[in-house]
């Protein structure tokens, strides 16, 4: 039935499949660990919603795991999202302002 670490090999092969086929270099290890790290961070963020209602937290965590399997190389999107292109940063700030206006007009 294969050795204990066959699950690790499966995950590694699965993730390695998405990279541009470069040899296993130090930057590759960064991308892989970054990928798993982002997944766990997003799961913790989803778990935050248990403050409102417990089932909402559970549903969101499971949803995040399912979404991860669907668009797996999220690290590429993460890196593109963090690029310091001025318009991308301004876009996120406009979203920040929209949230403020929504809270204000909602009259919390």
């Amino acid at each position, binding site marked *: 039935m294969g050795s204990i670490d066959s699950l690790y090999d499966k995950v590694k092969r699965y993730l390695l499949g998405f990279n541009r086929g470069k040899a296993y270099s130090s930057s590759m290890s*960064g991308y892989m660990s970054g990928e798993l790290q982002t997944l766990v961070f997003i799961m913790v963020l989803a778990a935050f919603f248990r403050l409102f209602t417990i089932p909402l937290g559970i549903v969101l965590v499971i949803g995040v795991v399912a979404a991860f399997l669907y668009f797996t190389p999220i690290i590429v999107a993460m890196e593109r999202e963090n690029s310091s292109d001025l318009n991308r940063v301004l876009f996120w700030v406009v979203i920040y302002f929209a949230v403020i206006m929504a809270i204000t*007009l909602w009259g919390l």
Partner: protein
Amino acid sequence: MTETVTNLWSIPLLLIIPILTAIVVNFLYGKVKAIRVVAILSSLALFAIAVISPYGYHWFTGQPAVLLNGGYTYSVQIFAWRLSLELYFGYMQQIMIAVMSLLLIFVVAISTKVMSKNMGTYIGLIFLIYMSSAAIIMVNDFYHLWIAVEIGSLLVAGLVAASGESISQKAALKYTFFSAISGAGLAIALALILGITGYPNVSDAIVSMHINNIQGMQGILYVAFGFLVLSWIYAGGLAPIHPLKSDVYGASFPHATVMLQTQSKLMLVAIGLIILRVFGTLPFAKEVMLGISVITMMVGVVMALLQTDFRWTLAYLIISHSGLVTVGISLGTISGIIGGMFQAINDVLYMSILLLCCEAIYYYGKGTSIKSVSGMAKKAPWLAFAAVVGAFAASGIPPFNGFQSEIILIQASLASGLPEVAVVILMVSVTTFIALFKSIYCIFLKADSTPETEQAQSRQGSIPVPKVLYLSLGVLIVLVVLIGVYPQLATDFLNDAAIKVVSMPWVP
């Protein structure tokens, strides 16, 4: 020392001496020796002032406070409307400015040794950045808060642009573009707070918000809170705006990044405490700040994993650890605020160790990318030791100071019923360890395989790292271990500031 001194002499000195030094150093443009002497002397003087100064206020408008029965008083014990623009120098301000002055001495000593061109303006900019962060940590009125943030962002752009490569000019341009939006936002927040409370002084504004009924003003308070948090994010480099700040850290000289990160940590603490004092009671205010700092921690540390250049790894780690600072402050509890401020001090210290090691590698001339530089442990063993100590302190390993502040933060977040925040803090410190040791392994521990480093290695045994860099690394390591073993050395200074913010927000 009990604090009854009004119009304290040390506060204006802490601001004027850096400005005077910047002017004098600019005049001595050519003469390197003279610049070095003037700069080191004035930074020693600043350190001495920060340590020996008594505690107290400095009222800019100079007129006494107005009592409720219409009389005037200079004493600060009894309650009175201050109606003045004031700066306050207390326990927390003392340790923050003392740590920053210590770093200023090291940065000035190293940069005068390392820098070759346009020395005068460069040192002047470093002193002005010191002045802007000293001003912001002592501020107790909105007007000076706004001026310090504006000047701070212009000086950051100047210092980054002074480091020469085109990537740093691009980073400076993007950062300055954004100062328009955050400066304009802060001006509008200032106007709204003034409109609601009628007082520019923070203490008076808080008192008038407690006394008068501001039920109808909830929406306006949120807009003012939003703009204030926007300038908090901009000055400190938090979640949505962190790419601009990480470019600034990555593109400037490592020894300049020591001052840049000190300035942004102090701005985070100062503006964070003012937001907590003024808007702490607003529903959802603390949750917004908590969300921003948790996202900053995550994004910063994940991006640090991806970098292949030691300088950029450190840049993203600084962003992630400033998220650690703000998560402590936005918890709002006394131990949370103490943990946040203590984390700011520790973070500044151990990041300076790592940045000075990065400076030595950069000074050695091969750049800091982990692909090109290797085998440094054989050439500079003490540098490898300092980098390992810095990495251990950054990832919170017991004998060093990172552990002490992270343990306070974890206990504070568990006490306020948020185990997820504790989980994120633990994961951030583990990932910091991974990211740092990836670079340290490639730069220091890996054998020297590439051929072109063969001739470089044969040229001389150990690399010509300036003595003064080893001296400052030694002092920093001693400080890191000292605070790691006796945390109360630093937390004694922070306790009363945290208690005042939570229980008596109208006292600065």
